[in-house]
């Protein structure tokens, strides 16, 4: 009898957590459905919003490890662009394999270079990020001047149909295991919690931070494949233009890491998906497209403000509940 009650409580708690996790994107999607049931009541439209968040999700996962150890690296976009251009170049010679290896290998190298600059020179991550961003952007421009920036449609298959889900699921499994079930994952969480304590526990923080750049580079490589395959093109950016690539994924990560009802890896998915739906809501309302960034910014401030001040907001209710329970 007691086991049954415990099992029932566990199931109920699981359902509650799932509902709380998916509450935000589902509510946002409901707004879309209410706007136009005819257009958004379809399963295809629902799937489209998930599809649209996949690229930002992959970029978000690649940044998650760095953000966990308080590394803010805005060079992700420039690395993605440069790796993408290299991948496109290689795809013209070696086909799909060229695209995959070109993106992943070059991205790992670029991530490692960034990590080395950070580790050896001890320059703060933001400064390192800006410095390498300028270098990688310029390299991208130089490279693009000497190549035909075109990718054959047959090499775009990885973002088509079910392929994008297969790739995302494989990435999810990898990221989930790395973040939750490895010594590396535990150690970066320890550093993120309190770096001094982590160091005194014998964790080599410098080495771990370097490894987050390498791992981030590896994941950016896959995000690049999705980015190129999704848009069908990759355009070099200069004048800090590549920074904008990282903004939406960062918002997804920040939002995802604040969701307490699920694991951060899942949270990043929920965050990215929610941000994507907000963009769709703007168009559904027929609002000026430039307003989207304003709304997304306001939304982020509200959600983060709510999450970070939740204890203060609910303190009176919790206290009242505790008094009643004690009585």
């Amino acid at each position, binding site marked *: 009898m007691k086991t049954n009650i415990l099992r029932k409580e566990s199931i109920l708690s699981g359902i509650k957590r799932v509902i709380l996790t998916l509450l935000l994107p589902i509510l946002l999607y409901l707004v879309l459905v209410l706007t*136009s049931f005819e*257009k*958004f009541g379809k399963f*295809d*439209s629902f799937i*489209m919003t998930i*599809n*649209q968040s996949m690229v930002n999700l992959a970029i978000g996962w690649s940044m998650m490890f760095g953000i966990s150890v308080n590394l803010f690296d805005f060079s992700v976009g420039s690395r993605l662009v440069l790796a993408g251009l290299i991948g496109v170049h290689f795809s013209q010679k070696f086909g799909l394999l060229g695209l995959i290896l070109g993106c992943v290998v070059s991205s790992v190298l670029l991530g490692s270079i960034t990590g080395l600059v950070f580790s050896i020179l001890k320059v703060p991550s933001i400064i390192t990020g800006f410095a390498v961003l300028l270098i990688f952007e310029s390299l*991208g*421009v130089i490279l*693009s*001047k000497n190549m*035909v*920036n*075109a*990718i*054959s*449609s047959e090499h*775009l298959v990885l973002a088509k149909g079910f392929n994008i889900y297969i790739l995302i699921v494989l990435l999810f499994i990898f990221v989930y295991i790395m973040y939750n079930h490895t010594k590396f994952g535990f150690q970066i969480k320890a550093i993120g919690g309190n770096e001094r304590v982590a160091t005194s526990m014998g964790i080599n923080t410098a080495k771990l931070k370097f490894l987050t750049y390498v791992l981030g580079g590896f994941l950016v490589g896959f995000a690049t494949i999705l980015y190129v395959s*999704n*848009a*069908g*093109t990759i*355009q*070099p*950016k*200069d*004048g*800090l*233009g590549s920074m*904008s690539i990282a*903004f*939406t994924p960062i918002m997804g990560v920040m939002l995802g890491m604040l969701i307490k009802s699920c694991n951060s890896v899942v949270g990043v998915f929920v965050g990215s998906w929610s941000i*994507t739906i907000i*963009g*769709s809501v703007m*168009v*559904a309302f*027929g609002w*000026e*497209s*430039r307003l989207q*960034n304003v709304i997304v910014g306001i939304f982020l401030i509200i959600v983060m403000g709510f999450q970070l001040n939740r204890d203060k907001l609910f303190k009176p209710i919790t206290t009242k509940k505790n008094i009643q329970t004690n009585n």
Partner: protein
Amino acid sequence: MKKLISIILIIMMILGAVACNSTKSNESKEEVKETEKKTDSDTDGEEVKETEKKTDSDTDGEEVERKPFKIGFSVWGTSDSHGRYVSQAASWVEELGGEVIVDVAQGFTIDAQVASIENLIQSGADIVSFCAYSGEAVIPKISELAEKNEVYFVMWDTTVSDPAIQEMVDSNPYFVGTTNEGQFEAGYETVEYLAEQGATDFVIIKYAIGVAICDERVDGASKAIDDLGLNLTYVIEVPEDTKKAVEDTLVNYPEVNAVVAVGGTAMYVTPSIQAIESVGRKGEVLTSGFDFSDTMGAELEAGDLSLVLGGHVVTTHFANLMALSAYWGDPINPDKEQLMIPYLTVTSPEDIDNFNKYVVGDVPPYTPEEMLDSISSDKTFDDFQKIAMEYSIEDVISRRGE
């Protein structure tokens, strides 16, 4: 020992700085002398030109003295094909005995563009050549810089819609003129062409805000939509994620059957094609763009793209020629009129092959003799305008005798 090395290094640095300064001073003095000769202690623009002409005539009879030149060319980037091609076209005049320095402004902002012009002037440019892509508000500042530093300036691909700015640059003795394309007409013709193909409900993608060229193209397209009784369903402005923006629009407005990007074919049309395919409407929604891209050949062949207007790379070439004529003291455009440049319309992969071969291939489409002839003393601005308007792939082929 360390102190000694430090002292030696400091002395070397000071000596180096003094040496550089004195070299620069000498150069500056020579430049000042030359400028004094040119301006003849008069600040009035028209009179400056008169003096120059006389000086040239006195020394060389009817011939114009073609002194070596340095053109500072400021561009938004060379990574996109349009930026690459206009930069390439800008350097064709190097064959006339000068140098073209290309400077990529770090960003699409007024500050970045002004900084770029400042750098070019600092590097000794006699002429600066730029497009007001960050908005026409940048023009007064650059005009001021050019006048202060006595450097000629020419604008290409630029629309000045503010009469006050136009008046201001016209009164600057160092302003040479502007080249531009019929942006409004181009927008209009794009819609007309797509309407002939069956398009009725349009989405327009704007690549910039507050840029007159972009606005004129949109105005032209909107006017054609009105005139032809079609519908402008939605305007997407500078999307971060073009594919998503177009997907959302197509889902919200299923009646849309044409997407017109008024600039940046590679950046906006290619992702739009992906979006059309992803919502299962391939073959139902027509697309068109401005400015050539590397992928447009394949896209036209696959039927994903209907039309691209662009190839107006000669806009920088004619702007530079115009500026050179002024620098050499025999301005081809003394009244600072706007020189119109035609667009090339591309609707097939063959058109692109010809463009790549004859316009942006290894050999410039104009020979040095043709360049000099187009701005020679016996030519008027109307003649020059006629030469510019004759620009087409067929024109290049016929001049080469192929």
